[in-house]
């Protein structure tokens, strides 16, 4: 993996987000901290409503009106994005952080030509000065994501789902961002197209040496494309580590449960296990460790106190009783915690 001696592209420090709703205040994100090095990719996984998309939209500062960032910093190459005024933030969007949206199918405007929608971003950030240069850039991007450049003058409804997805990725790459956030970009696609696009996304990301945050509920997909994995539960980051380490030896009981609820093609045949219970209500989250009502190892301390962990360890979990290593390979590792 990349060594952590470089200054990171992205530092998220103690990020906390609340939504005001009629039922009460939702603690959507609570004290999330992580770092991302240049050219590195981080996967954020968790169930629906665990706050992973909220983290992504906080990074872009594209939050709905009822959202409020209560604490934290988002440092992109050292600049805290949460301190910028609207106009400065506007110039950062897409130029520094771009996003491939969850609903990629709908993130193309139906009344404008696909190429034009990319050109308008190129234009807004002054990446090219003439229309022909901008078109040339779009053609390059199209080729990069495996689309015929001639398609740039077509409308979104003339594209198939996979083609739209590729176009949206090309759009995200159009202003050479330092960081790209992919929020469940392939969920709406069939498995074969999904796999191919994932591979290409990973190749492009490595080639351009961008940082990437890949958000998905599917830990298997995340494992394919990312160097590191962060597992989120109830608005908190509960485990973070290198993808291989997390897979080989999940430390948080929730991570282990998440992994056993998805089938694996490789390795031995294990029965799929569901995770009993419901994710907690974030208007009134459980005391202590939010996972304790569903956790088989929970005891008194879990119910009263949240297990804080330093983010400087390579692989950590916010758990009072981290799992012993389940050995699949060398068998030399020990559970930490």
């Amino acid at each position, binding site marked *: 993996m990349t060594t952590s001696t470089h200054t990171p592209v992205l530092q998220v420090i103690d990020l906390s987000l609340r939504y005001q709703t009629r039922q009460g205040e939702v603690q959507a994100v609570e004290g999330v901290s992580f770092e991302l090095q240049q050219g590195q990719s981080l996967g954020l996984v968790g169930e629906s409503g665990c706050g992973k998309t909220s983290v992504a939209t906080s990074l872009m500062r*594209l939050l709905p009106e009822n959202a409020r960032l209560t604490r934290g910093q988002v440092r992109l190459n050292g600049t805290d994005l949460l301190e910028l005024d609207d106009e400065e933030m506007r110039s950062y969007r*897409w130029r520094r952080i771009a996003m491939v949206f969850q609903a990629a199918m709908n993130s193309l405007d139906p009344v404008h030509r696909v190429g034009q929608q990319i050109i*308008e971003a190129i234009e807004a950030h002054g990446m090219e000065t003439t229309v022909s240069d901008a078109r040339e850039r779009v053609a390059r991007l199209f080729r990069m994501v495996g689309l015929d450049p001639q398609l740039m003058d077509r409308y979104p409804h003339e594209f198939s789902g996979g083609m739209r997805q590729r176009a949206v990725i090309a759009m995200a790459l159009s202003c050479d961002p330092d960081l790209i956030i992919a929020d469940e970009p392939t969920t709406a696609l069939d498995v074969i197209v999904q796999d191919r696009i994932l591979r290409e996304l990973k190749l492009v990301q490595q080639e351009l040496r961008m940082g990437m945050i890949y958000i998905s509920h599917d830990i298997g997909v995340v494992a394919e494309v990312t160097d590191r994995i962060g597992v989120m539960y109830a608005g908190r980051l509960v485990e973070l580590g290198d993808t291989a380490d997390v897979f080989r030896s999940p430390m948080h009981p929730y991570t282990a449960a998440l992994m056993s609820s998805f089938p694996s093609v490789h390795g031995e045949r294990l029965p799929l296990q569901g995770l009993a219970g419901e994710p907690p209500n974030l208007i009134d989250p459980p005391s202590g460790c939010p996972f304790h009502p569903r956790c088989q190892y929970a005891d008194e301390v879990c119910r009263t106190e949240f297990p804080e962990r330093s983010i400087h360890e390579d692989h950590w979990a916010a758990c009072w009783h981290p799992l012993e290593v389940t050995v699949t390979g060398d068998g030399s590792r020990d559970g930490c915690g």
Partner: protein
Amino acid sequence: MTGYLAKRAGQMALTLFLIVTLTFFLVQAQPGDYATFYALNPDLPAEVRAQIKESFGLDKPLWQQYLVHMKNTFTGNFGVSFGHFPRPVLDVLAERLPRTAVLFLTATAVSFYVGFFLGKAIAWRRGGVLEYAATISGATLFTAFTPAFGLMMIWIFAFKLGWLPVGKFLDPLVWRGAEVSANHVFSYMLVTGAAFIAFAFLVLFFFRRSGRIGSAPLVRPVIAVAALAIPVAWAFSDIGYLALDILRHMILPIVTLTLISFAGTMLLTRNSMLETMREDYVMAARAKGLPEKVVRDRHAARNALLPVVTSLVYSLIFAIDGSVIIEGVFSWPGMGMTLLDAVRSEDLPLVMGSMVFIGLFSLLAHVIVDVLYVYLDPRIRYQ
């Protein structure tokens, strides 16, 4: 496109045929006939009355009359107006139709623009003072009784303040000694207006095709210069003061029509905007770092426009319907007034001719809006 237009033309011909048929039988169903205008004189002996009837072909069976009428209508023979004798009906309509069309198309365009502009502004900034002011005043005016409101406008702006003429198409005092006819000046004005619109479209087209990014801001200045040059050129011509007189007479009816109808477009745009603002592509546009104004206009409002344009057909039809009332209030000598006068004076050829042309006008409005819609929404293609 050609195939689509051909199909639409076929549908129009069929609808027009139905309109002509309906008009014919509606007029037949009324008491009296074509000869009434001439034959009502009680001093006429019965034989003369019969002779008059015969000269109109009224002694023939109804189906024969219908066929003759059909043939005449579709060969462009609308007969001679009784009230404007000996002018042919077509001649009277050719004078009146443009006056109505210009007045009501301008009013519809202005009210559409104002409504769309306000609608997108109040949707974008919800809960502001503008939203309450625009919604309350718009809804009040929308529900106002048109003739009463028209009279109130005349009372304020023409009578009390004296800024604008009370009504009619022109002021005879201004035109005394003028060497050209009002129709002549008016047709020049129409040509100028059409040329300006064509020029504006060409400028838009040219700059969109040009090679440099950021040249779009030139569009507005160029069009603005042209818009300024036109009145200046007219001012130096020797019929400029006559055109100004016609324009002055147009202001009050246009403002009145705009005020009573903009709220429909405004509220529709607002609701449509609130839908599109939630769309993912609007979020994506903002994520791309586009300026807020571009996100609003090029993405949210551009998509919100689609359902609003559909309603434009109804506005146009409403405008023609309303012409009878508005032209009555403002004594504007257009189609509405012509139709009303013709009905009152049993000028049946003019009644039938007016009905057919009003029908034709609304058919054209439909086609224009349909073509516009196809142009605005690429997902719809002419089938």
